[in-house]
Structures are given as structure tokens and as C-alpha cells.
């Protein structure tokens, strides 16, 4: 068991704290792409033309969040956790 004091660092240089690189470069790279994809998805959800589109994108976010979990995403626990974020399904 490690006793590391886990201090978050900024991997992206955007001021957004993220988990240190723990799963290797390939996982980190996929995680970064997925985070970017999710940002676009949430923006689209915020501007959805109808409840139908908004809800479909909410559900898409849940599936996308599963993928993020597989590659070590720890910044959020679940979709819609952050106050003011689009509600998770």
C-alpha cells in the first residue's frame, strides 16, 4: 500500500487541476481526447434545440463518462457533479 500524499497538478496548462499521469502516456492521451470531446458534447447539450436533443445528449454523456473512468479520470465523480453543470442523467 502506498502512502503517497496525492497533490493534484495541472497537466493541461489550462489551469484545470487533473490527476497526475498514473496510467501511462497512451491512457493519458485518450483521456485528454475524451475530456475535449466531452467539453464539446456539454456545449452542444447546453444549446440543444429541444428537450429531445438535450436528453439524448445527457444520456450520451453518461456513456462517455464511463469511458473516462476506464482511463483514470478522477476530476469528477459522475456526470453533473459540479454545481451549475448540465444535469447528469
Amino acid at each position, binding site marked *: 500500500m502506498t502512502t503517497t500524499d496525492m497533490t493534484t497538478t495541472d497537466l493541461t496548462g489550462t489551469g484545470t487541476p487533473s490527476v497526475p499521469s*498514473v496510467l*501511462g502516456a497512451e491512457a493519458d492521451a485518450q483521456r485528454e481526447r475524451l475530456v475535449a470531446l466531452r467539453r464539446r458534447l456539454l456545449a452542444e447539450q447546453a444549446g440543444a434545440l429541444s428537450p429531445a436533443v438535450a436528453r439524448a445528449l445527457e444520456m450520451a454523456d453518461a456513456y462517455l463518462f464511463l469511458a473516462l*473512468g476506464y482511463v*483514470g479520470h478522477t476530476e469528477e465523480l459522475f456526470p453533473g*457533479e459540479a454545481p451549475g453543470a448540465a*444535469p447528469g442523467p
Partner: protein
Amino acid sequence: MIPHRTDHHHWNAATQTASREQLDALHLERIRHLVGWAYENSPLHRRIYDAAGVKPADIRTWDDYHHRLPFTDKPDYVADQESGDSGFGGVALGTDRWQQYFHTTGTTGRFLNEAFTHYEMHKAGSQYCYGLWDHGIRPKDSIYFCFDFGMWIGLWSYYWGARNLGLTIISGGGASGAQRVRQILERRPTIVCGTPTYLLHLAEIAQREGLDIREAGVKMVAGGGEAGFSIPATREQLKQAWGVEHVYDAYGVGEALFIGQSCAEWAGGVHAVEDVCHSYSVDPDSGDPITASGEVGEHVITSYTHFAQPFIKYRTHDLVRIDTAPDHGCGWTWKHLPGVVLGRADFMVTIRGVNVYPTAVENLIGEVPGLSNHYELHISRVEGMDRMLVKVEAGPGVVDGSGVLADRLADHLRANIGVRLETDVLAPGALPRYELKTKRIFDSRSASERPIATLGGRA
């Protein structure tokens, strides 16, 4: 459509084969985050942490987690459930975010109500994919559920897992046993899902109907609710009765679902699915972490599938051995629980100074020729002493009129456990059959007579 990537050996190698240091780093980050979430959003957790004088910012290291953060336990949630308006305990998200709710079986007392969001159901379902994939199950395969979809959460999560992996689902809900046998023979599913007792019962029904369930070509039986999938003798009976290659072993905690799943090598147990939970064990008396790999302790978990109702450093009361560096050829680095659940801290029986695990008794019953897999363990307290009566049905066509089988079972138990238990061999069919979780253990001791916590493995 992009074709499924079916050539990978592991479902998610990035975490499934990561080093212990990598996994622990992820765990600590998630736990710290989760403690903060629970403190801010769950009145129950805030009360517990405030009472312990702990703030989320205090939890920075494993030492903090192990020694400063308080445990949580089912009575905390039940008390909260009964005192609040919502009827749920430890809630951290409003009902507008819930998508479905369930309750546990209540086998250890009161029902615990559980709330899930849409995401949580999918996340909980993901835990099945690692093991099923390892056994060669792929999206082209199918699964038949011997299950009426009620309020018991158990096999619902299997359903979410099947959807997550992409299996074709065949529901056997609302059908009789004979109808299910015919549906299975007609649909020829890859997997049949039920409790081990019910699956053996279905094979018996098929035989009575003059049908051979093995002709269905089922490759795997799976499910849960009972210890049977972990017991070698029951596994062998299932293989024989169904003609299957694989018996899938999984370990569930009502509050965190099936967080343990078997790899294809099995190795006598399950891996903790470390993408969905943190798992470790403690001395039930002191609460200190068990540090020696393989020593028995009480299983304590933190769930990463529950945010509407967090379960953090939650005492399961299951006694387990945890191998922190398994090396049985599967390639998974996740902790392994050989023997799965060895007993319950609150079902522990000490007979003439010997700690007796109910699971050990269950294993040994299967080793006595002439006995069936249908049994009950009756625990009582007489004149201050714990007693255990083992009731077991004789196998089909076997009559134990002179008590020879009962004596043979008692001798076998004494030779292996070190203490003589009372035994009673009954006629075939004498004990009740259950579709869901089979009630095996009947503990008539009063709450004050039961051990609060017992570390059975040191006996």
C-alpha cells in the same frame, strides 16, 4: 457501424493490469474526492465526520483514510432512512436525479432502500464486463435471466452488465420452471443467470419433464445471491447438470453490488473490481488494516458506483482473505479474494473454542457422497454455548434410515474443522426451494448473544 474490438484479452487493460502503485494512486484520489462530495451533500456523512472531528481536507494519505476517517455501517443508513422523510439513508442527491430504486434482501435485518441515477446503473453494470470478457463472452453472445424483475437489486445489476457488454437479453420473468427449461432449450442462450440453487433446481425440473438441459448448449451459468458459485462441489454439480464449460463466480455486497468477479482462471475466488470500488480488510475488533496478505479480516469497501447514496469505508461484515499481489496467470493485478466470503463476522460461531465458518461447512457437505446440495445451518445458543445443527437432504434415491450418512457427515466435519457438529440427514425434497436468494443460515441467537465482531481466521 464500427466493429467490436473482440481481439483484446482484457476488457480494460489500462487499469486491470496496472501496478499496485498506480491503482492506489487512483483510489486515493477518488476516495478524497468522494469524501468531499459526501461531506458537502449527505447530512448523514457530515454528521458522522463532524462527530469524528474530521474534515475532507484532513484525508490526504492512506494513513488518514485508515486511521482518521470513520467507518460507516448499515445501521447508520437504516437509522437515517427511518428518521428522514425520504425513506432513504445517506442520500446526497435529490430525488429529481434518481432513476430507479430498490432494496436489499434484508437477510441481515431491515431492508435498506437504495437509489440509483441512470449513470450509476451503467457504472454498476460495467463491473461484470471484466470477468465475462475474460471468460470469452462477447457482444454476439446471449444471456437468459431466471429472474422476476422485482425490488431485489441483485440480478438487476447483472442485467445492466449484460446491456453494458452488449449481450442479447432473454427474459425468463414470469415463467414457471418448466416453461423456463423449454425456453432455454429453444433459445439456446450462451449464459443462464440465476442463483446456484435455482439453477440446480431447473436441471431437476428438466429431468422430471424428460428433457436434457445439457442439449441447450449453454456455455456458462452465472448469477449470485448465494455462495454456491464459489464452492467447488456445487460448481462441479452445476457443470455436470448443465454440461457447461464455465461457472462464473461473483461476489456481491447489497450496498455496492457485485464488486468481485472471477477471471477465467478462477483460482478459487474473485478479483475486486478496482475500477468500481476500493477494497481492503480490517481486524474487526481494532479496525486496523490487515497488512499480511492472506490473513482473514472484515471486508471494508468504498464504492465508486454510488454517489446519490455514497458508501465510503463501509463495513460489509464479510470475512475475507485478500491477496494483494495475485499471480495465477490471468494478468489481472487487482486484489484477489480466495474463497470469496469465508463467513460473516456477525454469523461467526465458536463451538467448544473452535471458530467455525459456515462457508467451510458448506464446502465439506459437498464432499460426502450420498448427500445433496440442499442444506441448512441452524445456529443457536444453549446454556451459554453456541451450537450448530447441519440439516442436509440425502441425494436422489438415497435413504439414510440408520443414520449412517449423518454420522459420516459428522465425522467428515470433525476431521476437517476440528469439532463435532450436530447433523441431520433428511429425505430428498424435505427442505424448501427458493427462486431467489436461498436461506441457508438460521441464527436463533439473540442480538446480545451474537459476537459483535470476531476475527475467525486466527483460530
